[in-house]
């Protein structure tokens, strides 16, 4: 466990292309985000945990990717490393042609503010600010004036226009989630990272939210990376990356419910071995 495997070891089981085809795949468009051979080891010595064991992946503009895998397989770690919130033990992460693993805290902060949006399972909002203030927060941090038409569009699309003056505590879980999505979309970020955004929502609320995410993807060209445990949620994505033991085991394109469940089933036997 303690020794990180060499990056090329895990290329074979996935359908991710080797570096030389990168430019051709995705209809010739350059990826917004790509990572190469990232590993992540938490702790050291006897308590060292290898959360990522060499992951290489590319994310194209307007692509909606779901990341699935058993609990503890490294999904959250993967997203955090991609977003520059955690530095990989080895490997590189490139956003729009710039390696973020060498960026300063200041540059990373600006990157997050201007190019990245986040949605989590819970605790997305600052409790002391109203819904509108929360949505506008990244813009205000950048000292930019919100485009009123854009704000209107986003809140209308997510159906929270009547709740703008409410504080998070006065909103339902689904409303809070939609406010968080509105915030993540308002600045037209290139990338949106979502970690189990529907995890605490009922089926129909969750579906509506996913619909809205996909619409954003299609119409605004945003790249979305979403961690989910829900096969149904995964079907909204363009592709599914299946993670186990910190490695990408499989990539599903245009997933449907059954293929996702099957692919997950294939992974499961590996979990006991990993533990």
């Amino acid at each position, binding site marked *: 466990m303690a020794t990180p495997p060499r990056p090329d070891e895990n290329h074979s089981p996935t359908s991710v292309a080797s570096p030389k085809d990168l430019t051709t795949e995705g209809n010739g468009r350059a990826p917004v985000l790509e990572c190469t051979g990232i590993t992540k080891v938490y702790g050291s010595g006897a308590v060292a945990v290898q959360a990522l064991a060499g992951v290489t992946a590319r994310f194209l503009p307007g692509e909606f990717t779901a990341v699935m895998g058993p609990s503890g397989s490294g999904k*959250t770690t993967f997203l*955090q490393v991609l977003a520059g*919130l*955690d530095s990989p033990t080895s490997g590189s992460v490139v956003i729009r042609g710039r390696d973020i693993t060498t960026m300063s*805290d*200041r540059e990373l*902060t*600006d990157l*997050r*503010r*201007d190019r990245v949006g*986040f949605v*989590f*399972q*819970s*605790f*997305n*909002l*600052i*409790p*002391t*600010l109203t819904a509108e*203030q929360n949505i506008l*927060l*990244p813009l*205000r*941090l*950048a000292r930019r004036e919100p485009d009123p038409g854009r704000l209107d569009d986003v809140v209308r699309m997510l159906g929270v226009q009547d709740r703008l003056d409410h504080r998070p505590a006065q909103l339902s879980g689904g409303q809070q989630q939609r406010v968080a999505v509105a*915030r993540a979309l308002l600045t037209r970020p290139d990338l949106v990272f979502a*970690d189990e955004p529907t995890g605490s929502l009922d089926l129909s609320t969750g579906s509506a939210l996913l619909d809205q995410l996909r619409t954003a993807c299609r119409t605004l060209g945003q790249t979305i990376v979403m961690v989910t445990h829900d096969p149904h949620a995964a079907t909204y994505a363009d592709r599914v990356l299946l993670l186990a033991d910190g490695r990408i085991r499989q990539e599903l394109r245009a997933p449907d419910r059954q293929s996702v469940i099957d692919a997950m089933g294939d992974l499961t036997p590996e979990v006991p071995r990993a533990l």
Partner: protein
Amino acid sequence: MLSDAWAQVRSYPSRLVAVLVAVALGVGFLTATSVFTATSAEGLRLTAAAPLTRADIYLEADPSVAGEGRNTSGVPAWLAATARDENVASVDPVYARTIDVFGAAQRGLGNVLSLPGNPAVRWFTLSAGRWPAGPRDVVTDEQTLSALGVSMGSRLQVRTHREERDGERPKDLETVTITGVADLGFQPLTGVDFRFYADQRFFGDDVTTTALATVRDEGRLTGTIDRLNTTLPDGVEAATASSAADAAASRFVGGGNSLMFIMLGFALIAVLSAGIVIANTFTVLLTQRRRQTALLRLMGAHRSQVRTLILLESLIIGAMGSVLGLALGVGLGYLGARWQGLDGGGLVVNPFMLVLCLLAGIACTVAAAWLPARRATEVPPAAAWRTAAVSGQGAPSSRTLPRVALAVLVLGLAVAGVGAPAGNLAMVVFGGFLSAIGLLLVLRRLVTWMLPTLERVLGRMGVSAQVAGANLRRHPERTGSAAVALVIGTSLIVALMVGARSGQASVDADLKNRYPVDVSLRTSDTALSPGTVAGIHGLPDLTVAAVLPEAPARFPASPREWISAVLGAPADVLRAAGAEQLLRPRADASPGLLVSPQYLAAARLKDGSSVTAVVAGQRRSFTVHPSPLPSLAGPGLAVLHADTLAGLGVPTTTRTIWAVAGADADREAWRSAVGRVAALDPSITVSGGLSERGDIANILSILVNLSIAMLLVTVLIAVVGLANILRLSVVERTVEIALLRALGTRRGMIRAMLATEALGIGVIGALLGLVIGIPYGLLGVAAVVGRQATLVVDLPWTGMLGGILLISLCGVLAGILPGWQASRIPPAEGLTAQ
């Protein structure tokens, strides 16, 4: 940004109440000091300048010319010349005399000031009675009347004061009549107990050096003064009365500075402990808001933006608290001046100082929030992501700081330790200050270090105490800071109490050495009245009192010193006064005689020499010993054993009575009792250790009490901080407490748990305060007493014990509100929360 900070403040106002209160108290104290100083300075100004307010010209003559050229009616030339000026309407010489006053209840020192003959120039009115009409009429103020126990129309015996022991014959007693009561409207600063105002004729042919004049035409005042300065004899100066008033006022105002510095010192200490409370509150608040801070960072807030947000928040609350404190301070400062009777000039506020106080409050709050804010900026943005609670505090506390602090502490103590025995006040102050800083820096560690012991002790006291102990240990740095704020106030109070008590004891011991007899009354008549003797025998806690027989004596003359009478002291008085030489006479030697060291030196004698004297006509030889006893009763006396005097068989008189107080006697009670006895008989002169103890003890105890009252503000701030920390911890532990309740813990137990936590911190604070305060108090006294006297360690155990109990009780009080809140958390909260 400002609106976000305001949103924070507005969302949880109650969590910031402690900050608000702490700032308000600190700033209030600072402001009160400033307002009190300014208001009382103006009051003093008016008081000092009062006699000059109604005149136009102030004249001052050099003593060498003041009495020159008196005309037939006794008016000196310079006054007559002034009166002759065409624009001068009136000239009034100003006389003053110091007198001994014998009232019904007290005797004491007073002064008499002359009233201008021109009623328009008098600077006060009468509230009752009439102005003095004859040379023996006086008016006085209400306070003097009540202190002397007399009323309007009473007759008083007065005597022009002379310095004691100068060998001059006492002046004759005079009787004056109180004809009116002055309506002064302020308390004059005269340095004497009693004040009188009399007609110029009261002063007989005293020479005056000052005078007040009025003019007919004020428009020509400067011209008149110029003319006077050229025509008047050399050595006489004329000036406008208003400039003289300013000069008089500024001389007085300078005297009020020391009180201001003391108050300022305590105010700054209050601000310091407010800073500790604020820093602690922000640390806890920001720990609770850790996830929120991480979310801000995740959304793209720079570290500097996070810091700005927090500092803005502290700025808002600091400004609010400071404004509150300003209002509080202005009110209190004015009331303080009023209470002291120094508000004659009305409320005086220095706007510059107010702005300074306001800024100090805001700066203190922002500075206190600085470190917690910096720590908050180190929260990683990823902390917003993980749902799991992020583990405790970030970086482990550094090891260098306590080492440096310890070094500073040891260095400071060493400097002070070297300075104290040498009586070097500067070294002790510097060393004490240095070590206090070091101590302040390691104090939190010290508290943290005591927590396991506390937990063990509490663990044996039942379940709720056990949980409380564990809770105190859970956040040792919080517990530490809360206790530190308390320790500052407590240790200073203890140090002051110890210092005052030991200082007084040292001074008393020193006085006892130099003045072995506490009270000596000596009459200039032939014998003491029975009333006086009975009065002295009736003093409380009396070790011994005795009337001393006396016989006239002739001793070999020496240049300046002489002995004209011998006193016979009984054995018990000699024993109580420590005069061992007369108690163990050697069989082969002549009887012992105590003389003053001055006489011994002047007569070229040595301890144990033999001297021959004529006592009531009988020639005798004595063995002389130097002693402070003889000069106690008056000049020209020697002391022998009463049996020796009786053995001579000569006629004696009884003019002197001595009394020695018991070790525990209340010296203040003695002073007033002796004053009452002596008031009955103007022929008596009072001397002895008690009168030497003087007003210093009185002023010292007032100052110490005032200081302790001021330090209580610091303790109050600490208690508010403690209550708030507990309140915040209840918010944090909601789920846990709900779980305890769900598992069947009763409300009372929850309340007891919080009370125990508060009590734990209170006890730690009080104990550390005691342990730290005692040595500092003693160090302070050692520095002041220095080499002039030996340090007597006298610890005010009852006072300290009371203080410790009080502060522990304050701790429990601080736990009441949080306890009540905790006990109201519904058990279901533990099951529904995420």
